[in-house]
């Protein structure tokens, strides 16, 4: 693994912390897009620039996650007029602390993986776990539907990063399947966000509590 790869992985880890602490939706989306771009480059770096497999995967990631999805998300931000996440369920400081703990757990876990999975190095597996945990953290602690969407996307970044440790083994079809999954998922959530906005005049998923079954 080259020094460039290490730099990129450290960037991914730092971006995780940024995602955990930011309150601006536009920064959140940009952070996610940069992270996805890092991953696309990493796919090329790890697999060599002359492998068509890596080019297809990196191209797919770039088109979807760096260009298309951020574009749609930004449009949604403008449309729903929700620029900031004002009411997180835990404070930003706590979020940062939790995300850091997640990084620790990720390293501890990566060190225990079988050697085969660490072929590409300890840091890659650790970054993958940390990214997944950050995604989950976003999902759990934020209340705006748009932040939730970004949470899913970050979670998927982590899964994809983990997939990179096995890039040669993971068939192209599976990679493409995951990408398609994400795309469809975001598409559906986009519609949901729009409808929540239209119905409740805001995009706070807490309003979905009213869908709960009544107490008997």
């Amino acid at each position: 693994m080259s020094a460039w790869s290490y730099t990129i992985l450290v960037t991914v880890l730092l971006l995780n912390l940024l995602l955990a602490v930011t309150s601006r939706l536009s920064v959140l989306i940009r952070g996610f897009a940069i992270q996805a771009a890092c991953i696309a480059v990493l796919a090329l770096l790890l697999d060599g620039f002359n492998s068509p497999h890596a080019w297809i995967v990196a191209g797919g990631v770039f088109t979807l996650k760096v260009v298309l999805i951020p574009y749609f998300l930004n449009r949604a931000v403008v449309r729903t007029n929700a620029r900031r996440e004002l009411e997180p369920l835990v404070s930003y400081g706590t979020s940062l602390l939790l995300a850091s703990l997640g990084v620790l757990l990720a390293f501890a876990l990566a060190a225990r993986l079988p050697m085969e999975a660490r072929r590409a190095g300890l840091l890659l597996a650790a970054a993958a776990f940390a990214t997944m945990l950050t995604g989950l953290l976003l999902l759990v602690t934020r209340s705006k539907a748009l932040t939730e969407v970004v949470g899913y996307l970050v979670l998927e970044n982590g899964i994809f990063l983990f997939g990179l440790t096995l890039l040669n083994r993971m068939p192209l079809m599976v990679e493409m399947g995951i990408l398609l999954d994400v795309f469809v998922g975001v598409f559906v959530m986009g519609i949901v966000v729009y409808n929540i906005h239209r119905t409740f005049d805001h995009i706070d998923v807490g309003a979905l509590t009213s869908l709960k079954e009544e107490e008997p």
Partner: protein
Amino acid sequence: MNPATLALAAPACLLLGALVSVALGRRSGAAGTVAVASCSIAAVLGGASAIEVLRTGMPWGWTSAWSLPWASLSFGMDGLSAFFLAFILVLAVPAAAYGRGYLAHHGGSAWTSASWAFFQILVASMAMVVLARDGVLFLLAWEGMSVASFFLVIYDHGKPEVRSDALVYLVATHLGAAALAAMFGLWGREAGSLNFHALDAAFPGGKVGWVIFLLAFAGFGSKAGLAPFHIWLPKAHPAAPSHVSALMSGVMIKMGVYGLMRVILLTGNPPRGWGYTLLGAGALSAVGGVLYALAQHDIKRLLAYHSVENVGIITMGLGAGLLARTSGMETVAVLALCGSLLHVLNHGLFKSLLFYSGGAAAQAAGTRDLERMGGIMRRMPVTGGAFLVGAVAICALPPFNGFVSEWLIYSGFFGGAIQGAGAPSAALFVAIPVLALVGGLALACFAKAFGVAFLGEPRSEGAAACREVSAWMTLPMVFTGAACAAVGLGAPWAIRLVAPAAQALAGIRASFPWEAPDGSGPLYAVVLAGWALLALVALLLGARRLLLRGKTVTVEPTWGCGYAAPTPRMQYTASSFAQPLLAPLARLMRPSLKKRRPKGLFPEKASYASHYEDPADRAIFDPAVRLFERLATVVRPLQQGRLQAYLLYVLLALVALLAWEVLT
């Protein structure tokens, strides 16, 4: 064509029919016709295959690899499967035809078409159950059967009581399926595979063997409706449309009997204790079933309790067969097992017939309550006649089929009691009066049901306005009624359907000497008695006609005992008919009675109402539900309705798992 292809073509044809039915959408009449057609084709295909196997005595098996783990696509047919396959597919045809008429007035709806698809899926999965030779395949087919029948039961989902009854059925059937999965798991662990060939060779004896048997008993018993696992049966049958009740009661619950028999065949040499268990459980179901049947006012619930009773009789025969087998009395075992298997067929026939005619009467009268019927015989002669034939058959009276199978079971009991020694002989000796008691009570019950519903004067406007139903519904009654008579009058031939299976269950490899005097001789005598009875009836009818010739016959109303204004409600009711029989048992059955006795010299109002709650409900079902509700209240706070909370559970579980992985 080879029998394997024919047999597997039958479910394939039914599934194709199901697809077509769904595709027909709102044209549900056409969907019903498709179901009738696909059931008929499947009956011809499967019937031909089964007859081939029964005739040649050559079982077949077919195995192929499957992508599912621990599973293989294994099918096979022996005498037992052949009998059950023919039984399922042939009885599905009149049920489909009857349903085609029964659902006609519901008008075209996509839900009705879907219901027809579920009907065909149910029949197909029952066929797969008896053909499967692999544990996973068996469980899949079993599950298909349970789910399809659930959707059939919930046909009238607009009514809240139908929804709750169907839910009880769904839960009960899945508890049974869980027991079966555990059974296959335990057995498969011993055998190293879930293929029936492997299971066959590897039945563990001792305690593990008993656990496997008890799991099979609970799982198959709950499908068969054996007490105390019968809770769902009196709820699901009245809730379902009548053709579905007929198919479920006549055919589907027999899959539980098939399962028990299959397990016994696979174990090779079942211990004697199983025989006692089955005989005891059968006796409990038979007596309990008929007593609670006697207490019912709802005609379909009454018939459902009779299913519990008849499954009890079948299981008694099976238990007696096992006892005789383990005591070395092979002839006795074959007699009892033949009776048991033949009763499977017979109950399928007469119970279908009773559900067809009882359902038609209930639909025409607009009520299932016996106390609001009456006088239907004169308004619906075919339906009434069909119910009468079914009632005579289910009461095991000659010349119909119930008599033959119960006679075989009786001869098994007597043979075992006389030839054998020790405890098995004593158990069979006790079984004789039990079966006699059941027969007597069944007779009382059907005298009540037929007398109250079909004779006398109509007790409600609905009953007075009854009209005979369409040919779609009467023809299946005629068909099954004729089949009841045919099995009863042609028993020496009908016995060939079940003889191979009974011999295998009795552990006899060589052919049983049916032509010898001890086997078929009495059977011919029994059948001759039936023919003689028929001749006598014909003679008496002829004599009546001869005597009345040339005389005018007038019909007058019954003498009203001098009352000034008699009403049809003064007739004997179903409750009053059953009361003298049930009153001595009040301590046992614990009815809730509402009485208002007539008082004074000029009594004004008096009333009597009885309600018999099922003891299994009271002792097992209700406490279980209450316990479950308490547990549910404990975990209820987990349901926050907040997306984040649910995701937090996922995150916490994940972190806990990862931490566990890191720390250990």
